[in-house]
């Protein structure tokens, strides 16, 4: 009983921090319509700068608090609002990409400034380790402080949103933007307030969580803790603050009870199944929160800001493009040094992952943040079937990942946009924390440190050599892109685009929306699984770190930059991802993030926008030869473009 009370106190304290973070998310979302995926990164950067000032430079705590919470966070909030303003009225998917870009920038900046995964001492918010004893339960100053702050935040938000003019206007935005304009409030000012409050609350949460984390800060724990806040916010449907608050406390308590119970009474289970409960449980909570969301009704959405899809390449054109890719790969295998050859090989593999995203996100409008996870599942099948490195393994890889893809899609066919993205993020994080690092005999992903996969052979040709492997990968990419374009030209492709533009209209002409979503997830995940299997053959082994969430994010954002609806975009995106991962170091996140922020407003990406513009230019120069109508807006004419 005593123990139970003790855990209750700890659980409430942790829940209180989640509540602060989650209410920040909710305020921002409900005033701006943007879900801030960079929320945790903001918390992390704030906690790090607080610790930098107090621990490293010996600034007094009050001064550091004023600087971080009173100056740094609001400035960041205003900056974000300035970035987002351009995206007003843009689709959920687009603003989502931008906050993901922001996440990468903040992570990269922290890496650059504070160096890698190294953990730091949190700043001392209070001196001494005094703790009080109430009814035999220890109550540390840290616990007490967190609870007081959370209560303060709750009271402040309640007062601010109900009693002040700005607050009332902020609540009105959710219900009726027109009403707001009538009341004379400026939407831009409201949105700025929404961002400032959101960022400040993230900063407060970041500074508060540090002492509760056993006295050290690391980037991963800080960024991950926000997953719990996501769960709480989703329980509150991203709108309801009181429900979010209660849910946050519930999540904190649940995490503490379950984590401690498992560690004490089921150590075997913990060892075998949950390498780190504190990392796996939050994700499980988020998954549950998303799974119990009510069915999303099919709704008429009217006209969103859409873009014309450039005309799709014909079969002939895609064959020529495919041949060009293989020819270029051959050239690269002669002209480039070993180092760069390796990068190109990896780039071709990421290119196939990007192709799977062209189908899923570019055509069908379904955002997936776990595409590389599907690749990891493929590599797993490849490594486990017939000793690793057979065509049967490739088949198994495609089949297993397609199956897993459909399994992931099954509950999410009810969800869309943001919730779908969150669900795939949770799946990716869950696989990172549980599947890829699992040492349980059943799923043992990698016996000791890696799962061995041999190179393939075909009709007596071995792909042992790196040049042969390069050709194999180029052929695989070419075939995959020809397949994707063929699908797009056919019945299925039209359905996918229809699904992306208006699911309601699809249903009312007799299309089974759920089945179509399952099918596209299956095909796309299967393609990603193929990439995973090839990744294994190329590298010779796969390990726990090969298929992490951040790599999914990398490939997705890179594809958005180059053009999510274009197969040549996929090739360039794959190659650029490989270059960044191999050569970019700390800067890669920043480069990619800035790229997304700059290009984010071009819905067809660099290639989808640039190619037609180039043709336009050429046509202007030579007015004599009007192009045939079919030749208009042809993208993907050559992958080399």
């Amino acid at each position: 009983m005593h123990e139970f009370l003790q855990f209750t106190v700890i659980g409430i304290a942790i829940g209180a921090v989640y509540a602060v973070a989650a209410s920040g998310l909710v305020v921002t979302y409900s005033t701006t319509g943007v879900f801030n995926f960079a929320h945790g990164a903001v918390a992390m950067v704030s906690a790090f700068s607080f610790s930098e000032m107090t621990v490293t430079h010996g600034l007094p705590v009050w001064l550091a608090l004023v600087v971080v919470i009173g100056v740094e966070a609001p400035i960041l909030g205003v900056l974000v609002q300035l970035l987002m303003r351009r995206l007003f009225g843009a689709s959920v998917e687009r603003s989502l990409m931008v906050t993901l870009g922001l996440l990468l920038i903040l992570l990269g900046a922290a890496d650059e400034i504070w160096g890698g995964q190294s953990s730091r001492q949190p700043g001392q918010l209070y001196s001494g380790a005094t703790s009080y004893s109430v009814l035999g339960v220890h109550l540390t100053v840290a616990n007490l402080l967190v609870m007081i702050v959370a209560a303060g935040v709750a009271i402040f938000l309640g007062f601010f949103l109900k009693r002040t003019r700005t607050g009332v206007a902020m609540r009105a935005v959710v219900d009726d933007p027109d009403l707001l304009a009538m009341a004379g409030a400026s939407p831009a000012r409201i949105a700025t307030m929404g961002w400032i409050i959101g960022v400040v609350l993230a900063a407060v949460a970041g500074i508060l969580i540090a002492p509760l984390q056993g006295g050290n800060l690391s980037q991963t724990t800080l960024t991950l803790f926000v997953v719990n806040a996501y769960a709480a916010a989703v329980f509150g449907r991203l709108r309801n603050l009181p429900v979010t608050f209660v849910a946050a406390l519930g999540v904190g308590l649940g995490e503490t009870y379950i984590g401690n119970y498992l560690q004490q009474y089921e150590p075997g289970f913990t060892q075998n199944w949950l390498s780190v409960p504190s990392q796996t449980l939050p994700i499980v909570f988020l998954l549950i929160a998303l799974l119990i969301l009510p069915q999303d009704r099919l709704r008429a959405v009217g006209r969103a800001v859409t873009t014309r899809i450039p005309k799709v390449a014909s079969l002939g054109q895609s064959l020529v493009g495919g041949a060009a890719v293989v020819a270029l790969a051959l050239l690269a295998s002669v002209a480039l040094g070993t180092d760069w050859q390796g990068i190109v090989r990896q780039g071709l593999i990421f290119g196939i992952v990007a192709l799977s995203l062209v189908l899923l996100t570019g055509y069908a409008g379904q955002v997936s943040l776990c595409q590389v996870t599907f690749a990891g599942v493929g590599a797993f099948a490849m490594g486990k079937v017939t000793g690793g490195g057979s065509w049967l393994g490739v088949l198994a890889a495609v089949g297993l990942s397609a199956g897993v893809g459909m399994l992931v899609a099954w509950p999410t066919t009810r969800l869309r946009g943001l919730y779908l993205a969150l669900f795939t993020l949770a799946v990716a994080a869950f696989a990172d924390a549980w599947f890829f690092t699992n040492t349980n005999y059943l799923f043992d992903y990698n016996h000791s440190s890696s799962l061995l996969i041999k190179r393939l052979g075909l009709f007596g040709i071995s792909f042992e050599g790196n040049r042969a492997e390069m050709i194999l990968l180029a052929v695989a990419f070419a075939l995959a892109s020809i397949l994707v374009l063929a699908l797009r030209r056919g019945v299925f492709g039209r359905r996918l685009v229809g699904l992306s533009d208006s699911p309601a209209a699809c249903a009312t002409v007799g299309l089974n929306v759920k089945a179509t979503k399952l099918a596209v997830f299956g095909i796309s995940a299967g393609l990603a699984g193929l990439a995973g299997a090839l990744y294994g053959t190329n590298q010779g082994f796969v390990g726990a770190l090969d298929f992490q969430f951040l790599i999914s994010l990398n490939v997705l954002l890179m594809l958005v930059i180059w053009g999510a609806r274009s197969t040549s975009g996929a090739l360039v995106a794959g190659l650029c991802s490989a270059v960044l991962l191999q050569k970019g170091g700390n800067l890669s996140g920043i480069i990619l993030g800035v790229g997304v922020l700059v290009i984010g407003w071009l819905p067809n990406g660099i290639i989808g926008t640039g190619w037609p513009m180039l043709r336009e230019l050429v046509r202007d120069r030579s007015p004599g030869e009007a192009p045939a109508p079919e030749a208009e807006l042809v993208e993907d004419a050559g992958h080399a473009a």
Partner: protein
Amino acid sequence: MPLDPITHMALEVREVSVHFGGVRALDSVTFGVMGGTVTGLIGPNGAGKTTLFNVLSGLQTPDQGRVLLAGREITRKKPHQRAQLGLARTFQRLELFWSLSAGENVRVGAEAVVQWWHPSHIRQTLGRGTPVRPGGPGTPAHGSAGVAALLERVGLGGLDWEPVDGLPTGQARLVELARALAIGPQVLLLDEPGSGLDDSESAVLGDLLVELAGEGMAVLLVEHDMDLLMRVCSQIFVLDYGQLIAGGTPEEIRANPAVQAAYLGSAQ
């Protein structure tokens, strides 16, 4: 081969109610639409017409009440199942596939119902060709020829490869009409198809609706253009604040004092 107008209840609505918070959008609405006729549905803004269409097409679950399609209960069917049973609709706020061309929009509709085992597919494979007038009840558009013929029929001939996001509203509405017709529906629900159409387009639309009814289709038409309604409807029902306040021939409705009160009361 034009079918004789069939006088059966193609669509029945029985005591359907829907509320949104405190608003009673539909209050125990009951009526029916005959096969082979064009039936009008009118009412002031916010009367519940679009909500009723959403209930009929399965996008909105009613609090109570039943919907029958050719005598068959479809209240619990999903939207796509209703479409496959022959119910098509258009939207008041256009709901096109904006990144596709006009022809591709129509094809998505046609391909959702035309499968390899479908009679019209088999007919075409056997060399009997596309129906001359695709889009009638039971004659979905099939293949490029069918789609082109259907576009021609709604007055959009030659716009097959025209991107819809560049079309004027009137023509975009006609694309939606063609997409709905592409499934060869028995019952067609049109939510203000005439708004945004110029006079000549509107005249073409009126003729087309009469022609479709002549082929046996049941058309339910929500429209504010009284001239169009008077010209094509054999029956008109009137909704006001979610309640059905009148029903009858166009002349009866025009003369009905309750209808005049509803319109005058809300319009001014």
